[in-house]
């Protein structure tokens, strides 16, 4: 028997944080690919400390619902789950395979483009150049946080779907407000590269960008802004693909 365990950050304050993890788990459960699909969280229940005891399967694939490599994927998750690396043999006979974060995976660019396509569906994007802006949190403490945004921007740029592909951040340069302000395009699609809705995606970003809704028309450009990439149903495919790739480790 094999099980998939999805690790989310979760929140002590907001139900929005864990919701996409539950939803992606439900989608993968419905696919029948795994005998069991379990969710666990850093700040909600079940905790990482206890989730593996709730799983019956002997072969367990753990996929963190995190965008970039860093503190959580490298330190907190392995510590709390008791992992020794990519493969862990537990005393109870379970073998646990641990995947890296989602953002660096090839399919991430597809999910971002799907999110952007859903957002602009039904709108006329002719007349003026079309730009895609990937919005990351960014932090000066961890280069991987912005690195994964640049990586995906590069991959999407190569596909030639948009005339321009740029990046903008909340906590580091280039700042999202300046990027959206100065980008020479008539249609600007802004996609938050976050795993879940939260204070930033719902409050601070729309405020900072002075948005009036999903579509904001200004004299010089139209801005499209929607839910973060992590809530898109296609993220479930990405999680499943990540686990499938991990299964190759078994040989």
């Amino acid at each position, binding site marked *: 028997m094999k099980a998939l365990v999805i690790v989310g950050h979760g929140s002590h*304050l907001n139900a929005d944080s864990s919701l996409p993890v539950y939803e992606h788990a439900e989608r993968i459960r419905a696919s029948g690919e795994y005998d069991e699909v379990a969710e666990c969280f850093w700040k909600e229940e079940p905790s990482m400390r206890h989730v593996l005891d709730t799983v019956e399967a002997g072969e367990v694939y753990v996929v963190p619902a995190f965008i970039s490599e860093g503190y959580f994927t490298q330190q907190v998750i392995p510590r709390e789950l008791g992992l020794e690396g990519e493969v862990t043999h537990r005393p109870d006979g379970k073998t646990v395979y641990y995947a890296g974060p989602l953002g660096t995976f090839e399919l991430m660019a597809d999910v971002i483009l799907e999110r952007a396509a859903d957002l602009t569906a039904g709108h006329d994007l002719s007349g003026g150049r079309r730009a895609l802006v990937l919005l990351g949190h960014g932090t000066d403490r961890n280069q991987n946080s912005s690195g994964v945004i640049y990586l995906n921007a590069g991959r999407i740029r190569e596909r030639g779907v948009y005339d321009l592909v740029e990046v903008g951040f909340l906590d580091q340069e280039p700042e999202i407000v300046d990027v959206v302000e100065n980008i020479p395009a008539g249609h600007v699609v802004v996609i938050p590269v976050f795993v879940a809705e939260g204070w930033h995606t719902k409050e601070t970003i729309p405020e900072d960008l002075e948005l009036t809704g999903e579509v904001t028309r200004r004299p010089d450009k139209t801005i499209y802004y929607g839910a973060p990439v992590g809530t898109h149903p296609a993220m479930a495919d990405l999680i499943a693909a990540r686990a499938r790739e991990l299964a190759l480790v078994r040989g």
Partner: protein
Amino acid sequence: MSGADRPVAAAAREAFAEWVAASREGRRFGQLLVRRAEDGYELRHLADAGREDLRPLAGPAAAREIARTTEGGEHRPLKTSPNLRRGWTLRVEDERELAAALNYLYPAALVHWHLERAGRLPVTHYRETAGRQSGIYEIVRNLSDEGVQAAARAHCEDEVCLKRPLWGVDAGTPLKMEPGEGEIPCPEPCSLFISFARQITLFEREGRDASGLTASERRDLAALVEAAAAGELPPAREGEFSLPGNRRRLRYRALTLVPRLREPLAD
């Protein structure tokens, strides 16, 4: 597969189903009433035991939705808080669905319940859990023994959490609190407790003024008097320990501040 190798989750699921089936009127588990039904199992809120006008739901996914928010739509970061919503009845087809539903309503409780009955539930005490923390939670290792005791009473007693703590400050220092008589054991301080412990650690760092109060105690008292005058408590979510109106913060103040306020003044 031999008995010894049997996954504990499978053994737990079977033991729980047997336990439920052995009782005609059903079993209490947290705030749940779990009963064997003709075609599977039925779950409902204990307080809805005799009601007929309940919304019929089915399957583990519905259990997840019941567990996520309170009656008033508030997020439930701790599923054993005694604020499970009422008004529903949930049907699950078999033992596996029952276990899946329970893992949403009371995550990992089933396996902990089983391991405790079998005398095999490993317990992790506060000092070990605290010693593992990093980042903004690293400071919780500095919380005093008295601080842990007061935090546990404020955070974990049955009024605010139905789990029965098995852990102590350390292996030789049990908690001095009423653990409750619930079915669900608590083998290790949870993430919400660690977050609360962080707040209490910050309180312990504060100095006291001439009247013996800390700055945060003065701020809380001012906010609470103002709020009471206005006729309502300042709102705070369950996990929002930084706000004066937070229930667990208030419980901590009741334990640690009120006795000092009631002390007669020395001449």
